[in-house]
């Protein structure tokens, strides 16, 4: 059953929606930086010192790999479904959108981004700070330092634009793959999907831009 086109898409879409949930939680955490670095650091500490964290991280990694693996397989099948390309192919303007036709590119951009993101921040310099005698990681300091460079900020904003575009098609597309279709609500869902994508890309761009402006 797992080899059926429709089921593969449904699993990939479901994994994508779960990743959306994670992204929303991640964004909420990021925005704590705007409150104060102490709140942010304490929150990060609470997350990482939690005994369940490894299980949760592994689950997240698993969901991500499912999404990645399935879309790669689907994409490979899609390419082989048309071995000979057209000399000229033009979108009608009544179907595909910029976001929908660039899902592969936005996806690859995100994959590259994620490698750097995890390497530089999660596994970045381990500064320490103490609050009320408890020593925690000073993630806030690393973030401020990291986003002091305009190149990094530019890269992040670019990646988050790709992220927003990926979501603006992917979000509603997952619902379509599960078979949600309604004369009135599908139109609304497609709009919501775009709003969601835009909000997420703005939301995730706030922190790098804000951190950069602090340092200027």
């Amino acid at each position, binding site marked *: *059953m797992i080899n*059926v086109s429709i089921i593969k898409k*449904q699993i990939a879409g479901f994994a994508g929606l779960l990743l959306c949930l994670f992204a929303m939680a991640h964004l909420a955490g990021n925005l704590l930086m705007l409150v104060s670095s102490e709140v942010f650091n304490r929150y990060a500490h609470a997350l990482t010192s939690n005994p369940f964290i490894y299980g949760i991280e592994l689950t997240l990694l698993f969901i991500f790999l499912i999404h990645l693996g399935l879309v790669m397989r689907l994409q490979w099948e899609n390419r082989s479904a048309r071995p000979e390309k057209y000399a000229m*192919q033009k979108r009608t303007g009544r179907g595909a959108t910029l976001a929908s036709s660039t899902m592969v590119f936005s996806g690859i951009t995100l994959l590259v981004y994620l490698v750097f993101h995890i390497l530089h921040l999660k596994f970045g310099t381990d500064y320490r700070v103490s609050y009320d005698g408890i020593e925690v990681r000073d993630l806030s300091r690393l973030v401020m330092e990291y986003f002091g460079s305009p190149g990094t900020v530019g890269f992040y904003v670019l990646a988050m634009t790709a992220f927003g575009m990926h979501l603006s098609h992917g979000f509603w597309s997952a619902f379509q793959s*599960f078979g949600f279709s309604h004369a009135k609500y*599908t139109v609304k869902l497609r709009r919501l999907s775009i709003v969601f994508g835009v909000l997420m890309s703005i939301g995730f761009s706030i922190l790098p831009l804000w951190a950069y402006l602090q340092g200027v």
Partner: protein
Amino acid sequence: MSERAKMTLKLKIWRQENARSKGRMTDYTLSGVSPDMSFLEMLDLLNEQLISQDKDPVSFDHDCREGICGMCSLVINGQAHGPEALTTTCQLHMRKFKSGDTLFIEPFRAKAFPVLKDLMVDRAAFDEIIAAGGFIDIATGSAPDANAIPVSKINADLAMDAAACIGCGACVASCKNASAMLFVSAKVAHLSHLPQGQVEADKRILSMVAKMDALGFGNCTNEAECQAVCPKGISISNIARLNRQYLRAALLSEESESMDCLEEGSH
């Protein structure tokens, strides 16, 4: 004929000797094209000239030339059935183009639609999908009295909308993944909306989708280019319905188990 200006066109046409040979785009200049000609009549004109020069005419599919049989195909300037919405190639007229235009004319391209010659492709894959379950097995008798079998207005309308599919394959040709989901979903929908189609609904869905996958069509990525080029305006809401009916059938239907057994047996 009126003094309406005849047009001269630059044509770039895919020429391919046979299914095994390698094809290429070939340039032609065609003058004397009337704006009142259909696209196929324009190709007829070209072929008359080629024949009179003792050259091989361009092969292309057509039958009714009335927009109802689904035999005509062609990707014209990068769009299946050309630039006009809700129109088959045979119903596309040359007045949509200007004298001096360059027209790219290519066959529908998909692994499952191999080119036979020039612009002619083999769309038997669609017949195979229908043969896998796109029919009703039970004896339904002769035509029943009107309204003897109650069908709600909305279901009758949805079934009719889906039944408008002429099976031309433009959905596959326009899809960047060469997916046949619009076709399959229409063929499933026009039966599953009616009481006679209910009996074998699960089996039909499972086997038609299995056949579609086996034939090497791609996976739908919900871009709706198929719906945009469909000469009959088949909606992608049919695809959504197919998706949910498939999931339900795969998880809950007894047919699904017997299909799995069959699959294992065949390996």
